[in-house]
C-alpha cells in the first residue's frame, strides 16, 4: 500500500505516543520493585538509585510469595491440563463429526463466555458450603475445587480454539490412518496429535494466562491453602501506606511470565482472545 510520507510520520508519532503510554506505567512501576524502601514513594520519583532485591526477598520469603507462586502454578497448570484432557476430544468431535446438535452446542459454548463470574462463583461457594456441611466433602480452598471451578471459563475456550486447529487439518489424514490399520484413537494419537501439537501448546499457554490472571473465583473459593498470586497482591495495600516496592515485586512476578508467554504466542493470541469466532 502506498502511504503518503506525512501520513506515515503522523502514524508513527501517534503510535509511539501510545506505546509510551503503555511503557511508562509498566516500566516505572516495575522499577519501584527494585527500589529500597526509603524511596518507594519519593516525589518527584527517584530514577537513579542502587537497585536492590530486598523487596523480592521480603515478598518471596517473609510473605511466603513462593507459596502463592506454587499455588498459582498448581492451579493454573492443573486446570489447563484438565481442560485440555476434557476439551481436546470434544473439540475433535466438533471439528470432525457431523451431527444434529453440533452447531447449537458450539453456539451454546460461546454463550458461556458471557456469563459473569459472580453468577457461577456465588452458587459455587454455596454448593461447596453445603457439600462441606452436609457430606463433609471439602472442596472450598482445595486445588481440585478451584481447578473444577476454573473449567467454567477454560473449557469452552479450549474447545473453541482446538476445534479451529482440528478443522484446519484434512479429515483424510486420520481417515487414511484408519484405513491403513489403526483405530480412530490410534490414528488420533499417532497422526493427528503430532500435527496439531503446536495448536495444543498455544491453547495451553493462552488458557494458562487466563487461569494465572484469574482473581474473582479465587477470592471467593480459595483460602490459606490455595491463595494465588493475584490474591496476594492486594495484601500489600495497608491502610496507612501501600508497600509499593513489595507490591510491584509481586506484580512483576505475576506479569513477567505472562508477557514472555505472550511474546512467544503473539500470533495465536487473537484466536484465543476472540474465542476462535474469527477464522
Amino acid at each position: 500500500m502506498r502511504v503518503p510520507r506525512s501520513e506515515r510520520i503522523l502514524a508513527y508519532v501517534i503510535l509511539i505516543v501510545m506505546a509510551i503510554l503503555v511503557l511508562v506505567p509498566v516500566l516505572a512501576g516495575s522499577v519501584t520493585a527494585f527500589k529500597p524502601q526509603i524511596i518507594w514513594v519519593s516525589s518527584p520519583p527517584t530514577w537513579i538509585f542502587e537497585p536492590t532485591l530486598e523487596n523480592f526477598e521480603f515478598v518471596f520469603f517473609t510473605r511466603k510469595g513462593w507459596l502463592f507462586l506454587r499455588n498459582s502454578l498448581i492451579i493454573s497448570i492443573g486446570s489447563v491440563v484438565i481442560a485440555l484432557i476434557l476439551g481436546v476430544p470434544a473439540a475433535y468431535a466438533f471439528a470432525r463429526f457431523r451431527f444434529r446438535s453440533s452447531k447449537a452446542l458450539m453456539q451454546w459454548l460461546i454463550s458461556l463466555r458471557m456469563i459473569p463470574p459472580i453468577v457461577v462463583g456465588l452458587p459455587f461457594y454455596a454448593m461447596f458450603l453445603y457439600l462441606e456441611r452436609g457430606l463433609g466433602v471439602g472442596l472450598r480452598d482445595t486445588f481440585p475445587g478451584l481447578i473444577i471451578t476454573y473449567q467454567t471459563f477454560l473449557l469452552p475456550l479450549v474447545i473453541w480454539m482446538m476445534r479451529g486447529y482440528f478443522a484446519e487439518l484434512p479429515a483424510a489424514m486420520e481417515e487414511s490412518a484408519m484405513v491403513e490399520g489403526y483405530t480412530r484413537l490410534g490414528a488420533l494419537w499417532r497422526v493427528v496429535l503430532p500435527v496439531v501439537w503446536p495448536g495444543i501448546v498455544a491453547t495451553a499457554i493462552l488458557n494458562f494466562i487466563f487461569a494465572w490472571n484469574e482473581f474473582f473465583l479465587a477470592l471467593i473459593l480459595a483460602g490459606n491453602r490455595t491463595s494465588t498470586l493475584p490474591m496476594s497482591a492486594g495484601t500489600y495495600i495497608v491502610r496507612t501506606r501501600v508497600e509499593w516496592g513489595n507490591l510491584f515485586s509481586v506484580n512483576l512476578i505475576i506479569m513477567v511470565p505472562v508477557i514472555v508467554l505472550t511474546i512467544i504466542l503473539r500470533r495465536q493470541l487473537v484466536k484465543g482472545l476472540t474465542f476462535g469466532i474469527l477464522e
Partner: protein
Amino acid sequence: MRNFKAVLIALVLAAMFLPLVVAQDTIPLTDPETGARPWEGKELRILNTEVVPILAYQHEILDPLYEEASGVTLIYENAAHSDVLPRIQTTCAAGGDDFDIMFVEDGWAGALAALGCLEELDRFYLAAPGDSHPEDFTTRAFGTVAMAKEKWVGIPTLVAVGMFAYRTDLFEDPDEQAAFMEQYGRELTVPATWDELAEVGAFFTRPDDELYGFNYRYGTPNNILFDYMIHFGFSRGVDFFDANFNPLFDTEAAIDTANFFAGQDVLNLQPPGRESFQFGEVMQNFAQGKVAMYGTESWAIPLLLDPDASIVAANTGFAPVPGWLNPETGEIQSALLSAGPAYMINAHISEEQKQIAWDYLQLAHGVEFSRILAEQTGAGHRISVLTDPDLVAKWPHLTANYEAAKVGIGRPAEPWWPEAENAIGRALQEVAAGGDAATLMVDANNDIREIVEDAGYYDEGLTYVSVEQREDFVCAKFAELGLEHDECM
C-alpha cells in the same frame, strides 16, 4: 430398644467429650518465668491484615518474642482489609479451620458471633488465665473491642480512641501568637471547640508555604463514618440508634454535623487531595510538616513520635479532640468513639489448636508483652501501661490516651452492622462530594431502617445495647470470671 440406643450414643459421646472437659482444667501455658514450653513445635495460623502500623510493630516486636518463648511457629496470612470479613464469613460458614486466630474489627464481631465463628474465651481463662488480664482494659474499650454483646470473644490488639495532634513549634512561636492575636483578637491556643478549630485552621492555612490548617480523612464508605463520629458526631450528641433500633442519622444534630463535617469551613483547611485521604495520607501530611493540626487515633501516636517516620516528631503535641460548644448550656460537649480490632479464636478448630491460640493470646497480647511494646514504641491500650508512671514519663500522651479510652463509645455489635455502616458511610461521602446533607442523611437513615427491619429486629422487640448496658455486660462478665474492676464498683 430405642432408648437403649440413645443412652449408648449419649455414653459414647460423653466418653468422647470427657477428655475435653478434663482438659479444660489443665490448659498448659507458655510461661517465660518458669520456662514452660508446652506447645513447642506446634504451628499457629493467623489471618491478619496490616490495617495500621501498630499491628506491624506487634508483628515485628512481640511475635518473635512469643515464638522464642513458646517454640510455636506463627504463620501469618495477610489479606487486604476489605477481604478479611468476607474471608472469615465464607470460611467460618463452611466450618473451615483454615486459620486459628483471626483479626476482627469491632464492627464485625456481632456478625461473626451470630455465625458462631467466635470461640468464647471464658473457659480458657478459668482454666488458665496466664498473663491475659482482661480486667486490664477500660470497660468501654473491652466492651467494644473484646466482646460481642455479652460474650467475651477476643483480646484487643489495639484500642483506637480519638486523639488530636498539633505542631507545638507553631503554637508556641511568639510571632505566630502575635499575628493570631492581631488577626482574631484572642490568644492562640489549641482549639477546644469546632469553631475554634475552623478559626485556627484558617489562620494556619497558607498554601504558598505548603502549610495547611487541619487534616482528616474521607476514606472508603465505612471509614468515613468513623471520622464523622469520632471528631464531631458524638460531641454534638449524635448516636447510632435509639433504644428500639430506630437509626438516628436523620436528626437535626446528625445533619448539622454532616454539614459541618463536609462543609467548606473544614474542607478548605485541608491540603490538596483531601478527597483521597486515607489513614496513610493524613498521617504523612502531618509527618511531613504540611499541616498544623491533625485529628487522629491513638494508634498513630507511635509513628508520629518516631523521628524516622516524622520530621516533626520532636514538635508534636497531643490534646483532647475539640468538642461542640452547646449554645444553650455554654458547655463544651465532648465524646469519643473507641474502636479497634481484637484477635479472636476460630470456633471451628481442634481443641488443641484452640488451646495453643489461647496460649498465644494470653502471652503475646498479655500484660508483660504489652509493656515491652509500649516501652519501645509508645503504643499502649492496657490500663497497666497507660497509667504506668515510668511509661507516662517517657510517653506523656499515654495519660490522654487513658482518659479517652475510659469514655470511648463503641459501634453496635449487631450482625447487620457492616451493611448499615456502609450505607451511612456512602451518604457521608456523597455529602463530602457536595450533595445535600439533609436529603442524603434521611435517605441513608431509611436504608438503615430497612436493613434493620430486614434482619427482623423490629418484630422481635430487640433493644439497642446502650453504652451503659455494654458496661454492664463487661462488669457482669468480669464478675463471672471472678475479676474486679475499678469502673465496675
